[in-house]
């Protein structure tokens, strides 16, 4: 079975870039357009890993992680934060929110796939 990735980002460009890169690598990709949509799709599906943007309307990426970690279903799923921030502040914020790791935009396709494989064992 393919590894299932839920990609949450309000930017159609980033969603397209993620989908193309991850499907090319053999992953099964579902996308969500904001945090609320992302949490709903997480509950309705069986994602092996979640990638989420931080700044989004309705619910931001840290709110998404809060909902996942505080829920009953698959609460230990790896969650990667996709952000334009960098540096120690990003690490601190992502860690405090319960993120498993972080990828800085613009992302390198190979590096992203490598991190996903490592975090999922795929």
């Amino acid at each position: 079975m393919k590894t299932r990735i839920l990609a949450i980002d309000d930017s159609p460009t980033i969603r397209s870039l993620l989908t193309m890169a991850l499907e090319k690598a053999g992953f099964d990709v579902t996308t969500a357009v904001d945090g609320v949509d992302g949490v709903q799709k997480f509950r309705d599906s069986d994602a092996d890993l979640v990638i989420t943007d931080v700044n989004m309307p309705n619910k931001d990426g840290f709110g998404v992680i809060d909902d996942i970690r505080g829920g009953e279903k698959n609460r230990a799923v790896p969650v990667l934060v996709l952000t334009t921030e960098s540096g120690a502040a990003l690490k601190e914020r992502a860690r405090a929110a319960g993120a498993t790791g972080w990828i800085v935009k613009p992302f390198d396709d190979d590096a992203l796939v490598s991190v996903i494989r490592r975090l999922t064992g795929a």
Partner: protein
Amino acid sequence: MANDPSILDTFFEECEDLIVALTEGLTEMRDGAADDETVNAVFRAVHSIKGAAGAFALDELVGFAHKFETVLDELRSNRLTTDENLLRVLQRAGDVLADLVEAARDNIPANRDQVDPVLNELQAFLGDEDDQPEEEFVFEAMTLDFDSADDQSGYQVSFRPGPEFYACGHDPELLIKALNELGSATISADDTALPDDFADFDWESGYLTWTIDIQDLATDLGILEIFQFVDDLCDLKISPRDTPLTPAQPQPSNPKISQILRQPRRLRSPQRMSTPQLTRRP
């Protein structure tokens, strides 16, 4: 991937929508009809343009959007107050951002005579704070001493996950599998930290210390990459194999709890690697 023309078309279509949202938000701010969500929406529009533009190496657009969003971030964090001058500069910045998007779409150079004065006005709101390049979160390249590398036969990695390790969705087995792919590995688990009494057992705590002995590994860069996200979530020690780690002092362990724990299974070894030996420390 980012060179795909259809993705670039998607980006410019997205930019059109974001510029409309930006213009509407700035108009509301100018008319005094804005609330916190309006400022957040304006920030997100600029932030989204910056984030996606980076994928296409549109550096002038990214650089201007970064300065613009930093001022907006100061505003939404109440470190700047709205006044006539700030609103005027934000309006000009919105116009310049739209021009930069158009220049990028037409693949022509930006008009620096229009861009630079607005950049300077944005910078004036930030002082020296944002005048430095962003700190990059990268691994430092190591200088390899090839003479001594000839003598380096591998590394020993020891780690004991803490509670936050599991809370953030990490799995020690996946780290061990990744280490096993770096070289021929021998893996052992020390369970002497397990509590004597089952009632004292905390399911969210880490009691096992894993030690992975990797042969034929000249540098620890691969190890550092594997522990990139967890270096401060576990008690981690990495040392060359010629200076072995001091074994943990044996402590009384409850065999019943040990039996309850799943026996770590032998990892599937890549064909080019030798099969790791899974042993338990006395």
